[in-house]
Each structure stands twice: as structure tokens, then as C-alpha cells.
């Protein structure tokens, strides 16, 4: 079984791109399936089912969605194998722009759209930076120049990635994209494999359910902004800011 991890900001067109791409694999009589990860709500599983694609959905709820992804991906791979899939796709929304669900040696795809603004490639961090393929969507409604500028911004953030334009509505580019999905290695298990990027340190009192605001309720890995006003800075060297640019 081949495994493809697809991620990207909400509403960038991941589901549409995946569905259009899977159509080409289904036409080649390959068995395909999807695991959809989200936080609070998704009805994308229905959309996949309508497309004749077996699907499992996982909602992380109160948990960090990317941690939830890593804790479940091996079980999902085993589900895919039991279903006899040739290609399993994991789809997850990058929500805090700090994580990426990509696993080393597993094809990593980031979907991002032309409408999201030219500074977005810089903002979304490892999800874009460590992808093998970057798919740019919604190219049919912006000018050629904006597509070129956007693609060059993506290239600047991730010079190694292959950048492709796919239209999730018409499917333009999806055939070409689908030819890259069957290139990867066969995956029996992801156990023992490593994430491409470490997940964020999230060990402060708010992770544990604290809701009150104020220094005395802040414990653990807390960092303060440098607002240039020394009189109000925290005195604890363990929690004071290590400013990084």
C-alpha cells in the first residue's frame, strides 16, 4: 500500500483535489481510501463516500489535532491494509501553522490556494516548508501574474518542492498529480518512522485546562512577548522570553 499525507490550511481545497486525483487512480482499478482528520467538525467523509471512496474520520476535539494525528496514524495504516487498499490518503488541516503531519519517507503534499495572500507561504511554516509536493489551487480565478508571483513565493519558502497547479473544481492538473502518487515506496507500517518536524512544546497550565488570565496562573512552558517595557517583565529566568526573530 502507498501512503500519501495531505495537509493544508482550512478551505484551501484539499478534499476537492484529493477526490479529483483519486478518480484517476480509481479509473486504473486501484483501491483507494482516505482518513480525514479534523478538529471539531467535518462532513467531508460524506463527500468521499459519495465518490465511492472508503473513509474513516477522526475528530481531535479538545486535543491538539497534530498530536492526535500521530497517535492514530499507525492504526489507520493497518485499517487501510485490512481494506486491501492500494493507496491510502491522510487528510488533515493545518491549524496552528506550527505543525506538519509529514512522516519521513512518506509522500508529503501541502495544498494552498492562490487567494490566501502572498505572505501566506511564509506564514504556514513546516507544513509548506517540509512538503515534497506543493499543490496550488484556485488558479482559475486569479491572474496569470498572481499565479506566478504566488508560485515564486512558495518556491522561496520551499525550493526543493515540486510545485503544481491543480483545479479542484474542473480537475485540471489532477491527472498529472495522480501520476506521482504511485511512485512512493510500499508501506507496511509507519511504526518506528519519524515525523519530519517536531510537534510544538505545549506544556503550560492552559494545556491542562486553566482558563484564568494572569501571571500567577501561568505555569510551565510560558513565554512573554518583548514589548520593550522593562518594568513589567517577568523576573523568573525560566519563563522569561528568549526572543527569536
Amino acid at each position, binding site marked *: 500500500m502507498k501512503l500519501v499525507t495531505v495537509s493544508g490550511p482550512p478551505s484551501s481545497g484539499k478534499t476537492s483535489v484529493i477526490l479529483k486525483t483519486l478518480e484517476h487512480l480509481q479509473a486504473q482499478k486501484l483501491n483507494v481510501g482516505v482518513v480525514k482528520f479534523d478538529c471539531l467538525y467535518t462532513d467531508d467523509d460524506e463527500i468521499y463516500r459519495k465518490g465511492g471512496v472508503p473513509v474513516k474520520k477522526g475528530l481531535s476535539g479538545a486535543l491538539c489535532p497534530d498530536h492526535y494525528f500521530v497517535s492514530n496514524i499507525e492504526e489507520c495504516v493497518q485499517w487501510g491494509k485490512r481494506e486491501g487498499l492500494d493507496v491510502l490518503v491522510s487528510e488533515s488541516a493545518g491549524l496552528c501553522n506550527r505543525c506538519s503531519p509529514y512522516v519521513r519517507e512518506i509522500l508529503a503534499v501541502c495544498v494552498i490556494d492562490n487567494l490566501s495572500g*502572498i505572505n501566506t507561504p511564509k506564514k504556514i511554516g513546516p507544513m509548506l516548508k517540509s512538503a515534497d509536493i506543493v499543490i496550488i489551487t484556485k488558479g*482559475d*480565478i486569479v*491572474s*496569470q*501574474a498572481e499565479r*506566478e508571483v504566488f508560485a515564486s*513565493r512558495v518556491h*522561496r519558502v520551499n*525550493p526543493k518542492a515540486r510545485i503544481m497547479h491543480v483545479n479542484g473544481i474542473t480537475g485540471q492538473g489532477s491527472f498529472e498529480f495522480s501520476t506521482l502518487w504511485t511512485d512512493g515506496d510500499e508501506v507496511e507500517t509507519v511504526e518506528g518512522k519519524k515525523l519530519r518536524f517536531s510537534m510544538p512544546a505545549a506544556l503550560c497550565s492552559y494545556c491542562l485546562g486553566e482558563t484564568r488570565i494572569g501571571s500567577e496562573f501561568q505555569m510551565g512552558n510560558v513565554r512573554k512577548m518583548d514589548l520593550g517595557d522593562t518594568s513589567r517583565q517577568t523576573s523568573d529566568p525560566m519563563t522569561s522570553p528568549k526572543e527569536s526573530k
Partner: protein
Amino acid sequence: MDIRKELASIIVGDLNSRWPYATTFLAKNDLEIEDDPSQKLSEVASDELLDQLAEFIIEMESFLSDDEEVVDEITIFGGNCKNGEPEGVRELTIRVGEVICIVGPTGSGKSRLLADIEWVAQKDTPTGRSVLINGHTPESKWRTSSEHKLVAQLSQNMNFVMDLSVEEFLTLHAESRQTENPEEKIQQIWNDANALAGEPFDLDTPITSLSGGQSRALMIADTAVLSKSPVVLIDEIENAGIDRQKALDILVSQDKIVLMATHDPILALMGDRRVVINNGGMKSVVEPSEEEHANLVDLRALDDRMMKLRHRLRMGERLDEV
């Protein structure tokens, strides 16, 4: 990686002879280096800046070493129709400066033909077509590199979405293309666009407030001058607010191959040839006849009459007499 290592140990005095553009890059990032040529660069520049410089050098080197092969012609070898039968046109060569119209019913396979060209198909797409560039099998960069896109696309649905003035926007595009003489190019695009659009606009007009005709004019002039893609695909050019013949002339003058999907008789007759698509395949190639060209005069007169009627409607007149 090697460049980054070299940067870590290089002394300031050697920097300029090694990479002449590096000093300018550092100056742009507020780092002036001139005091002590024996000083190590890594002592004055932060790691982050050195990372950025390394990336910049890699980009510049690949840009400078790029002895671009100019695309003179594209040859498409026919494959199969949707029903599996071989398509009518077995070989079609299109040269720079040509305008080829693509006609056929909706869903007939126009997009697939264009996709085959863009992907430089090598019998590995559903149609089984193959595409040659300048008579030989193309390099893989046409597929893999975002810098070398074979096809630029213009369609009626496209809009500007960035919050920038015309000048800022063109500057940004020129920068991303690493264009030489950007000011000159920007001036040229602006002049061309204004010649195309009926109503002139200024360089400081926000691109999002351009009218439909002005936007289309700017997109065409910009694609002609700044886009490196040798093939331009146009999905119709609406018949309002833009001089369509001039638009094609501008593209052709910049050594583009123009492919135009259209149902408009006037546009179709402006092309050098037209490819008829049916049932997923290229059915035939039609060259406009003398008679067709002669009819262009009548068609333009008809068109003109329709335009005048539209104008009268807008002005609140009745069309009791046409």
C-alpha cells in the same frame, strides 16, 4: 549546503570576487561590510542572514547559468479519441508567432489538449498524445520546475485579488521573475495595456478597481511581457472594452504561441489556423479561406451593429427600430 559552509568560513575581502551580487544583498539587509577585508563574514552577519544569503546565491546561480533554450515550435502527435479510435490529426506543429484557435463543443476535450501541452505528454496521459519541443523530446524541467511553465493562461473568469496599485503589482511580478530592467518593462506593459483598453488608467490605480476591460488589457500586456511561458492559452476575449486584434498582436510580437479557445466567429477568423476538437480528439485543422477572410468585414459590421444596440439599451432607449 556547500555554499552555506563556504559562507561560514569566507573572509569579507573574498566575498565580492566570489559572488559580486552578495554585497548588494547584504547592503539591502542593512549590513555594510568594508572595514576589515580579513574579517570573517560569519563574525559580522547573523546565522539567519547567512542562511538567506546562501539561498539567494543558489537562486542567482541557477538563474545566471540558465542558458534558456528558446521554444520555436511545438509538435503534437495525435493519440486517441474518447472511444479509443485514433484522432484525425496525426501531427500538428505550431510555431512561435502563430495564433491557433481551438473550437469544439463544451466537454469535447479542449482542456485535455491544453493539459497535454502543458504536461508535455509523452504517451502517458489518457489521450496517448506526445508532444515535442523544437522537434525533440523535451527536458524534464518543463514538467518539474515552477520557473519553466510551458503554458500561461488567461480566461474571462480571472480577476486581480491583490491589494496593490498597478505599479506595485507589476514591480512584484517583475521581481518574482527576476526581470532585467524592470522599470522599462513596467512602462511598456502600462503603455500596451492602455492601448488595448478603451479607457486609460494610471500606474497608481489599485488593480482591484480596474474595469473588466482594463483588467483584461493589463493581464494580456503583463503576460506578453513578463511571463516566461512560451505558450499563452486564452479562453475567449470578451468583446467589450478591449481591442482584440491588438491584444493578439502584442502577444505575437513577444514571440508567443497563442492558443485561443473560442466560439466567436470574428476571433476564430483572426487565427492563422483552427483546430477542431470532437469526442476528445483533434478532428481536423482548418485554415481560413479567402472567402472567410472576406466575410470578416461583414462580421465586424454585424458586431458593430450589436454593440451600438447594446449602447442604446444602456442609454435607456427603446429598440423599436434596429
